[in-house]
């Protein structure tokens, strides 16, 4: 290796830039969480210091938990996300298997058709989607959201999974066929377990936009019964514009589950993004 890549000032410079940017990236998140544990006087008096025994106060959290139905919104978000994820992974893997395993007439056309949705956002079809949901009586149900998110997640899932399924050894599948396994058994018993790591990657990619989406809950399911946590937080924040304790606590409550999940799955996510490179 050359001396240039090892030189000390260069390394220090790299760390300085990266540290600065890390601070910029984390500062708002830390600021919000830190201040959510403070009293009103503490929030305005010294916003940049961590809570001290004098300024520590949970009033924000008690207001939020007393006022908003956050537990219920969480449940809705969880149901929608988990169900959509399940269908995206199952249907996506099945279609990806069909496209990568068999050659049939129109197979590349079918692949292209399914890939269309990667570039064209489903949001542009909202007007007709709402009409469809009204006609089928699905407005203000979680089913509507699950259907939309399944359709939204499928194109990318099929695309990524079929790339991975092409790598599964043909010998293994043919050995299964000789042993008299049906195509379904080969898919569920042989191929699916082998592509499990890539399924996890697809899962993380699919999950984040679903959990964070505001557009479709706002349009398809705005009722109290079906509010997701993102929509609930949005409306709640609007109501409490002047109650800073409650706002900061609500924001922290919305941040924390995502943050915890991210810390657990970040390796998986980053490995997924860089999978083409680091084999």
């Amino acid at each position, binding site marked *: 290796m050359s001396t240039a890549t090892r030189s000390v000032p260069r390394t220090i410079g790299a760390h300085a830039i990266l540290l600065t940017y*890390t601070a910029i990236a984390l500062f708002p998140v830390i600021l919000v969480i830190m201040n959510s544990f403070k009293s009103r006087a503490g929030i305005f008096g010294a916003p940049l210091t961590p809570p001290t025994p004098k300024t520590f106060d949970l009033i924000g959290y008690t207001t939020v938990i007393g006022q908003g139905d956050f537990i219920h919104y969480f449940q809705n978000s969880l149901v929608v996300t988990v169900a959509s994820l399940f269908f995206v992974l199952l249907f996506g893997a099945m279609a990806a298997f069909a496209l990568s395993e068999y050659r049939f007439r129109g197979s590349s056309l079918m692949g292209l058709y399914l890939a269309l949705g990667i570039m064209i*956002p489903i949001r542009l079809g909202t007007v007709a989607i709402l009409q469809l949901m009204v006609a089928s009586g699905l407005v203000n149900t979680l089913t509507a959201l699950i259907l939309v998110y399944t359709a939204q997640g499928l194109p990318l899932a099929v695309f990524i999974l079929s790339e991975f399924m092409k790598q599964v050894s043909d010998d293994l599948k043919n050995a299964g066929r000789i042993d008299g396994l049906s195509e379904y058994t080969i898919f569920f018993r042989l191929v699916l377990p082998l592509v499990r790591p890539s399924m996890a990657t697809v899962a993380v990619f699919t999950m984040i936009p679903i959990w964070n989406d505001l557009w479709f809950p706002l349009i398809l399911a705005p009722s109290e019964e079906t509010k997701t946590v993102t929509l609930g937080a949005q409306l709640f924040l609007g109501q409490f514009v002047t109650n800073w304790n409650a706002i900061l606590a609500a924001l922290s409550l919305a941040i924390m589950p995502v943050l915890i999940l991210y810390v657990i799955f970040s390796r998986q996510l980053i490995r997924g993004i860089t999978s083409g490179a680091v084999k």
Partner: protein
Amino acid sequence: MAADIRPKRPFRWHIGIFLAPAVLVYSAIMILPLAGTLQLSLFRNIEQHQVFVGLQNFRTLFGDPNWSVGFWNALRNNTWFFIIHMIVQNPIGVMLAALLSSPRLRFAAFYRTAIFVPTILSFVIVGFAWKLILSPLWGVAPHLMDLVGLKSLFTPWLGKEQYALTALSLISVWQFVGIPMMLIYAALLSIPEEVIEAAECDGITGLSQFWKIKLPLILPSIGIISILTFVGNFNAFDLIYTAQGALAGPNYSTDILGTFLYRAFFGFQLQTGDPNMGAAIATMMFLIILGGVCVYLFLVQTRLRRYQF
């Protein structure tokens, strides 16, 4: 002829069964509504009936000042939103990725994880958190600027017409810089050692190595990032809606196509919702995005040299 000689294969039902659920859901919820929306933009609701009116809705959109002023304003703002992303987000992303990929850098995993955090947060959180930070009421932003002696430059950016859109674009850049960083990082890692070593043998190191060797090799990734940014920006809605409301204030200065579509479709205080005009705006967005994707596929991608190692 060959087909006649070969024994006819039985129809492979399982292929259909594997494909059916995905194709059905995708067609019914995505493709058909998309086509339906495009079709709806050619109709008007006249006395409770949808009547075919040709391009009349588009004539209204471009000809009627009530609509055209808003549309061009939204399109202009959206373009500016996109330009800010291209000139701020992508260079920062490339720089961070280049630093992260330098060999034997300590704490690289920590930096990577931390810088990606904003990307996983929802717009609602991001929009509101920044609204609080930039709020003159709380005083965090002026206080911080005071530390570096720039307090006199502080104004409530989100509340001023001339700054609000740029401020929001930068917030969006802050949120999404993780994506170009990760993709470029992956591209940089996939450059084989031999290429770098050959460059070093020729005495090309450091910055000139980045400009002459690495940058040309990651151009395809930069192309992909640009088109992803384009699609994402012309489809954006949530951040503006959360931070500035459906009216995209102050005085529509942050109105982009997404919020314009929302108001046209659902209506707001002064105006009733109009699905047909909403569909017309969605069609325009569709054409803009399609245009961008085509430019990328046929002009950019074919000209970029891909290197196979």
